[in-house]
């Protein structure tokens, strides 16, 4: 091989690229073979926000962002996990807690936590108590934020079934600066009629205007769930009106043959409703996006 006029042979550059390729190949092989759990522990090597605050040396907001991203990825990763393992979003609260401790004004983190910590599995962690903790922390830093009071109120209403508490929180929300004027009427409605779908619809509709897409999606789903509840009531009436021989299992075919329905009814997410063969109760399929449905009185 003739020596080039300047420097080492150009093949050296090619060899360098080959080495880099080898490195990447090894990286891919390693990532495929090692379960992600090895890294999960590492995410929270430092659990204490105070320690982390010191370690991060003034880059608090940036670190808060990192933990926020990790929180979303953790939620997403668990959500999309098809391995069949029961995932409980264990790290969601600590990650959000750290993010909001490092940056107490991190609004999105509080609101994300409000929704996805309180929501029942598989949509969320099913820990409304942790959600309330997080929001209380937010209120402690920014007492005037009506959204945090509103979120606590909603959790009390929707998950904890404590309409008195919900009403109280709605009232306090209404007293914050810049609070929208529909909060007071909702508080009042809480007190007079208890858990009812009209109020719930109302609150979800407000949330449709939110600037975060996932908030809007959640609101959309909430509305669909309430529509589903209404539809279930109607369907159960229809089923009850069809003559039924005892001992026979209930089925949609029976209803359709009786001419009361034209086809198997679909819930607002286009998934067929399920009718219990023994009791004739109608419910949403557990494959449906609306599952699990909230329980409310009319």
């Amino acid at each position, binding site marked *: 091989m003739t020596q080039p006029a300047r*420097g080492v042979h150009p093949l050296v550059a090619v060899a360098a690229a080959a080495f880099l390729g080898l490195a990447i190949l090894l990286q891919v092989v390693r990532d495929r073979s090692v379960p992600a759990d090895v890294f999960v522990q590492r995410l929270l090597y430092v659990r204490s926000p105070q320690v982390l605050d010191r370690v991060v040396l003034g880059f608090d907001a940036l670190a808060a962002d990192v933990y926020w991203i990790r929180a979303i990825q953790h939620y997403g990763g668990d959500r999309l996990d098809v391995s069949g393992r029961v995932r409980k979003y264990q790290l969601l609260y600590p990650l959000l807690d750290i993010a909001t401790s490092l940056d107490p004004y991190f609004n999105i983190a509080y609101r994300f936590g409000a929704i996805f910590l309180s929501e029942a599995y598989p949509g969320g962690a099913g820990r409304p108590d942790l959600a309330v903790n997080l929001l209380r922390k937010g209120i402690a830093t920014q007492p005037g934020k009506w959204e945090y009071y509103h979120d606590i109120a909603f959790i009390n209403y929707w998950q904890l079934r404590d309409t008195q508490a919900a009403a109280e929180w709605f009232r306090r929300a209404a007293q914050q600066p810049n609070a929208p004027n529909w909060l007071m009427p909702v508080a009042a409605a809480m007190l007079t009629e208890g858990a009812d779908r009209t109020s719930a619809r109302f609150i979800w509709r407000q949330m449709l205007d939110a600037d975060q897409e996932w908030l809007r999606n959640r609101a959309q789903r909430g509305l669909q769930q309430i529509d589903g509840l209404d539809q279930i009531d109607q369907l159960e009436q229809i089923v009850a009106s069809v003559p039924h021989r005892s001992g026979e299992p209930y089925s949609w075919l029976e209803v359709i043959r009786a001419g009361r329905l034209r086809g198997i009814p679909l819930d607002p997410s286009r998934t067929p409703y399920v009718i219990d063969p023994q009791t004739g109760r109608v419910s949403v399929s557990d494959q449906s996006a609306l599952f699990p449905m909230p329980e409310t009185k009319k």
Partner: protein
Amino acid sequence: MSPAIDIDNLAKDYAVGFWRRRPYRALDRLTLTIEPGEVFGFLGPNGAGKTTTLKLLMQLIYPTSGRATILGRPVGDLAVRQRIGYLPENPSFYEYLTAEELLTYFAQLFGFSPADRRKRIATLLDRVGIGRERRFQLRRFSKGMVQRVGIAQALLNDPEVIFLDEPMSGLDPLGRRDVRALILELRDQGRTVFFSSHILADAEALCSRVAVVAAGRLAAQGRLADLTEFTVRGWELVVANLSAAALERVRPATSRVIEISPGRYSLELSLAQPADRILAELVATGASVVSLNPLRETLEDFFVQRVNAVGQGSRTEHEAVDARR
């Protein structure tokens, strides 16, 4: 016999200017051949391209065009480095090493056995005049002492061809005399010495052949005797006991008068003047003659003339280069 160093149309451009559009030609198509056993002087003013040439020969920089070989092998050949030595201009080495350690390091790179290393290093350091200081770290060395160490490291491997870039720089007169003697010794041993300098007196004393470069171009090359024509251009007359009156009478005939001490003068007479008649007149006034010497054209005159010629030529050439682009 094949040349020790063969330089063929070697050129080096540097890209200057923000957009790198105007190349600066540091060396313009140099062609030179140096035969084995020669002491070759590579002369020129500062910035003429001498160091550029040496760096091209050591492959510290790469040529824009042209080639060069050393001992028949292309520059940069690793095996040839075993047989050559190089002293950079104003050398600097590793401050934290002692002189002995530096030479040991280089000797290790040559692959000498430990015993061989010790012997060579001791001999060389003696030869260049470094005594006890060889155990001190180089950071404590004066410029002259670093230069001596530099010469030592250039000779470590008994090289056949030695390249010296301004070997006299930083040395006092005693040191310079030592280096001159050393170079002559190397010549007597049959080695080839290629050294660059802007001090013409050294070249005159040492070289068999010289080349003169200026502004990156070769202005002249050849045997020293051939280059400086032995034309007598005048006389230098040194007289003593010259009275002031006699001096004034003879002054119009002189081209230059220098007072050496009271009554003692050096008079320069051009060829046109009748030197012997003036001499007789002065003696008649009572002055005594100290010496009468012919003035020949020196290397310096030749040098200045050729460098200026290149200067004239380079202006037109640069215009031509620009026009071509």
